[in-house]
């Protein structure tokens, strides 16, 4: 069983929901990423989503765009992100790490080279925003062969037939984008989310995570009532952005712990 699958199985047995925080690798500086990953786990993260910086993050709002720009100023590339994951794995062998990013850095490394290096570094899943299933069958097969879970996005605009087709390809969990828009946008219609997640669950034999637009512990708790996992990105990146350097780890850990407490309530 993959690290992601066993994590969800253990959570289910304990009747708990997964908390998946996101940070951009290399933000605010390369040497901060591994300590931040550990802080996320200490705060109660079940899975870590690690953003791979890209020069043209088309699906991201301003907060994560700025995180990407900060990381790119330090020249952080996919190879560095894999090295950070390897470093994290030296002291944490249980928390799954999912890379979230765009196709081109993976293309530049090459599919085979990426799959081998990612597995070796201890990466568990890959979510490539601009690789829809039609263009990524071969990549998905290579991921599967390497033991990496390929995670797909589902949108409010995805028709049910397509949901069924995508969930057949997906591994690990499926990620429902809870609003039309970019990461970090403002409003979330909880009743619509509930209806869509129900439909997705009817099609998928996989856990359903929900993300985009979850900004506080209370919203996270409400989303967790209908989903298996809650993804929080922009809000945590914002915590990093607005904290004094010496307070970053504590503030991030405390924010995640607050969400954790709400989910476990």
């Amino acid at each position, binding site marked *: 069983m993959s690290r992601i699958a066993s994590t969800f199985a253990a959570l289910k047995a304990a009747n708990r929901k997964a908390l998946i925080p996101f940070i951009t690798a290399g933000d605010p500086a390369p040497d901060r990423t591994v300590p931040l990953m550990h802080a996320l786990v200490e705060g109660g993260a079940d899975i870590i989503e690690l953003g791979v910086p890209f020069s043209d993050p088309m699906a991201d709002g301003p907060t994560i765009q700025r995180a990407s720009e900060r990381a790119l100023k330090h020249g952080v590339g996919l190879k560095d992100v894999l090295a950070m994951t390897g470093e994290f794995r030296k002291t944490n062998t249980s928390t799954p790490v999912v890379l979230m990013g765009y196709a081109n850095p993976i*293309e530049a490394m090459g599919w085979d080279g990426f799959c081998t290096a990612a597995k070796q570094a201890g990466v568990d899943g890959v979510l490539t925003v601009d690789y829809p299933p039609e263009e990524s069958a071969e990549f998905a097969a290579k991921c599967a062969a390497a033991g990496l879970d390929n995670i797909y996005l589902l949108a409010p605009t995805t028709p049910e037939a397509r949901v069924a087709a995508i969930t057949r390809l997906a591994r690990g969990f499926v990620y429902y984008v809870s609003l039309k828009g970019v990461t970090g946008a403002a409003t979330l219609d909880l009743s619509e989310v509930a209806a869509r997640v129900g439909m997705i669950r009817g099609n998928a034999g996989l856990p359903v995570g929900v993300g985009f637009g979850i900004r506080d512990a209370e919203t996270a708790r409400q989303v967790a009532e209908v989903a298996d996992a809650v993804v929080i990105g922009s809000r945590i990146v914002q915590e990093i952005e607005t904290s004094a350097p010496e307070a970053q780890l504590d503030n991030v850990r405390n924010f995640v712990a607050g969400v954790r407490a709400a989910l476990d309530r």
Partner: protein
Amino acid sequence: MQMYDLPDARGHFGPYGGIYVAETLMAALDELAREYEAARHDPDFQAEFHHELRHYVGRPSPIYHAKRWSELLGGAQIYLKREDLNHTGAHKINNTIGQALLARRMGKKRVIAETGAGQHGVASATVAARYGMECVVYMGAEDIKRQSPNVFRMKLLGATVVGVESGSKTLKDALNEAMRDWVTNVESTFYILGTAAGPHPYPMLVRDFQCVIGDESKVQMAEQLGRQPDAVIACVGGGSNAIGIFYPYIAVDGVRLIGVEAGGNGIASGQHAAPLSAGTPGVLHGFRSYLMQDANGQIIETHSVSAGLDYPGVGPEHSYLKDSGRAEYVSIDDDEALAAFHNLCRYEGIIPALESSHALAHAAKIAPTMSKDRILLVNLSGRGDKDINTVARISGIEL
């Protein structure tokens, strides 16, 4: 020449093109592809499109023999396809009319566009006014500073111009921001993409709307000269004017197709915008094509005197035509383009766009190597009034 019927149903030109977008946009692109397929085969849609091109744009645009300049160069005869004489001063309007008619057909009341130099923004604002639609144009903050007359033009036409502060604050970032708007407002909004790039079906539909340039050229050349040119030359940024004039000639044997990229400070300097000449394939802005990128797959900044060619990617059909050998791609640097700009002003009384000046410069380079009975057809894709501030600044003149 084999039958050419690309792209395939999912927008592939060989290994290039396709649909590489976030899931949120997939349904909108499917809808657009379906609607376009219907419009393409709808005689009423086609009739209205061509009526607008004739009565609003002023088509057909003439083909003009640049006789004095050809004599000066002393070789092949240079003919110009005068897209600069279109309403709004460039080929861009052909595409924006087509897409605005599609938007209306789909019941969308709000259109958005990205723009670099502002030409596509002006052409989008123009058709939005013409058809009574709300229009928002995304433009890099750097470009807004460099192109203030076009910003004012868009505002006069009733558009809202939104400055983009992310990334390099230029065309590619404006495109990112337009995509973000589209993701957010996908149900009410039609995205008028400005070049033959982006996810399928954009490269195909922009080509189809622009190929009126090549269709007319074939007829006009036959009428005026009784023969087709030896070579067709066009500048390539995203590549819409080039594919518009190339496409009808793809199946015509004996006509060389030459795309001219922006060489900036020279290919060797690394400061250019010539992905076909010096880039590698990758994925950006929803499609696979040649790109300017570093070893990490990050998109690198481009340099060109011409804002309209300042783009790190290129339409996927050009990547295919390059690999297949049907078209050749070369580059012209800033200085060569400026020299051609001045020559056309002085010898033909035509102020060309700096973009088009790249195609002119390549014609000037090869014409002297050819005999006087040879014919070069250059797509003069736009007029240069918009560029006079840039040229003055380079010449050290204050206006």
